[in-house]
């Protein structure tokens, strides 16, 4: 069994690495067309992402929210669902975190932080859980519903920060009231990276254990493998669907709480920056494996972190990095048919 798992991991790592190499080659062609030397640019990406302690901190800071939003796609994916609602769940989580902090104006910070976490996880969970319930009981396509829920979340947040939650001091940008400076969660000691990184890593590990070492995880993966067989075996498919969506949404909601409590202090349109969408990319590159999400988010965080340096040193447009991410995404998807084709990774029949 262990040897089998090792083979699967080796196969995944090899094929993903080959896909990454192929995308680098393609991206290199693109760079050449733009008149840049691809090797110089790759050098800059490395310098900007992993070349120094400063670069590493940048990378990890940017990776933190991606780990959580990636789980929003990766967990429901174990059941064969394609959820792209991380953005909406993140926003709802951020708004709920602010609401929780504002209702507890005199509580000590650790109580407020705990309340913000719970509220954000609950809000994100309910948000994606809604799509799960629609899927389970009404057969509504979860990809479409989660995409639409993203827009509803943005509209709802805009309504709240221009209405009931608005801080009238913020005339130029509608924002909610501040959660209070003592309630902000700071940086990890000795690092210029906020605690979100720790939350992200812990969440990924818990998600992995949940999916691979519990009855729930086994049942969920069975639904993903063959939903009819799962039904015949008597598994509660609707409940499993909703639960996976709720847990995924809760992770993205937590990312929203971190954006509020570690970065902005308020809810406003600054929450809508596409972490939810990059999370989808991370989940797919990690092939929906919660543990693989950690290095993948770090890789994409690094690519994002190097974006500025690429613009500054090579005079390339900022969209360069997006092109690279798009190419990687396509190559990872295109590599899918190669799984099971390499005899090296097959289990030896004794």
């Amino acid at each position, binding site marked *: 069994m262990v040897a089998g798992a090792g083979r699967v991991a080796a196969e995944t790592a090899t094929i993903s690495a080959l896909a990454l190499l192929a995308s680098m080659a393609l991206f290199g062609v693109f760079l050449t067309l733009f008149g840049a030397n691809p090797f110089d640019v790759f050098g800059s990406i490395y*310098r*900007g992402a992993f070349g120094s302690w*400063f670069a590493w901190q*940048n990378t990890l*800071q*940017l990776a933190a929210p991606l780990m959580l939003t990636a789980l929003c796609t990766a967990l429901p994916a174990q059941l064969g669902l394609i959820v792209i609602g991380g953005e909406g769940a993140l926003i709802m989580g951020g708004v709920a975190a602010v609401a929780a902090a504002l209702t507890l104006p005199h509580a000590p910070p650790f109580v407020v932080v705990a309340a913000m976490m719970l509220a954000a996880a609950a809000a994100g969970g309910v948000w994606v859980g809604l799509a799960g319930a629609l899927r389970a009981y009404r057969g509504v396509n979860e990809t479409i519903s989660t995409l639409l829920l993203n827009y509803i979340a943005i509209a709802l947040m805009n309504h709240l920060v221009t209405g009931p939650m608005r801080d009238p001091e913020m*005339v*130029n*940008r509608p924002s909610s009231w501040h959660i209070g400076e003592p309630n902000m969660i700071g940086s990890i000691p000795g690092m210029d990276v*906020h605690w979100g990184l720790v939350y992200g890593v812990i969440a990924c590990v818990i998600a992995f254990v949940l999916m691979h070492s519990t009855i729930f995880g086994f049942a969920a993966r069975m639904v993903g493998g063959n939903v009819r067989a799962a039904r015949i075996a008597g598994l509660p498919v609707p409940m499993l669907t909703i639960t996976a969506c709720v847990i995924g949404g809760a992770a993205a909601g937590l990312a929203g709480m971190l*954006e509020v409590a*570690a*970065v*902005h*202090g308020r809810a*406003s349109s*600054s929450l809508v*920056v*596409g972490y939810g969408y990059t999370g989808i990319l991370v989940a797919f590159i990690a092939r929906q494996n919660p543990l693989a999400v950690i290095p993948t988010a770090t890789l994409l965080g690094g690519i994002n*972190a190097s*974006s*500025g*340096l690429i*613009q*500054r040193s090579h005079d390339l*447009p*900022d*969209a360069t990095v997006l092109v690279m991410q798009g190419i990687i995404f396509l190559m990872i998807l295109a590599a899918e048919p190669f799984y099971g084709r390499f005899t090296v990774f097959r289990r030896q029949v004794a």
Partner: protein
Amino acid sequence: MPYPYRSSRRSFIKAATASAAGVLAYNLDLLNASAASDVIVGALYVGPKTDYGWNQAHAEGVATLKKAGVKVVEEERVPETVQVAKSMESMIKLDKANLIFATSFGYWDQMLKTAEKYPNVQFLHAAPTVWKEGMPKNAGSYNGYIDEAQYISGIVAAHASKTGKLGFVGAKPYPASLRNINSFTLGARTVNPKATTQVIFTGDWVLPVKEAEAVNSLADQGIDVVTCHVDSPKVVVETAEKRGIFSCGYHMNQSVLAPKGYLTGAEWNWEKVYADYVQWLLEGKQWPHLVRGGLKERIVRNSPYGKAVSEKARKQADAARDAFMSGNFVIYKGPIKDNTGKTVIAAGQSHSQTDVWLESMNWLVEGVIGSTTG
């Protein structure tokens, strides 16, 4: 609607060459004074550098520094998150930048935090934010009274309009936008006291589809001059041209996009502001934490008049500009009523440009059709 005039491209090229020459001449002393490498500028933009609007206006200002020999590093599309601080730090650490221009409203908090960390680097925010005692000494903000240029656009617009109906495409009903709308309308009503400005708010800074829809619906209502306050006026100006109506630009000169119908526009003159900061820094002076100004301080300007602008309109607009340049002209001088009939500025009262009361404007002047709730 046929146009009674031919392309104004030639005059545009002339004007553009003239203004470029002027800028270069201005920056020449800068080039001489600078040991060039003493100042390294880092600029952050929230959108693309080629948006024909807010971001491009800044990028062009920075570009004149580059031409004058100052080293410049730039990043576009920097989201208003922790990325702001990271980009600034990266510019400071890897490129040795010592003068940072943060050109989006949402950069303020991150900028202040970073300024505290790097006391030897100067940080400047392009927005109506105000530095207060207790904030880092190496931080400040700059902004212009662009509504003065809008007032002049209003005069030109009212002259060009046959129907007396003007249109304004806004993003959000926030104070600076309302001030632009009001100044534009007040300018227009000095020409035609019955002129009206129909306002449509799209809801956000960059919504090209809604902006086009807004211009189309304004044109359908018989409005024959439009202007705007959105991040990228490209769509508004181009759509107006397609519909055969006139337009006044915003942020920068958009006359290339509408060679027939472009009348004038309210532009920023960041070249001047940026050159000033570099100069102050080179001289080792403590620069002001708050830089504000209008036409007189040359922080804002109007685009060169298009072909369609009549002699009469030019004369009146030039006269208004001269009045602003003399420094004793006040736009917000009572009696002024809002568009619900309430008197907001009583007779005898006046609010000059530097009056902070104007920075929390929440009313629309008589003659504006629309409401402050969007």
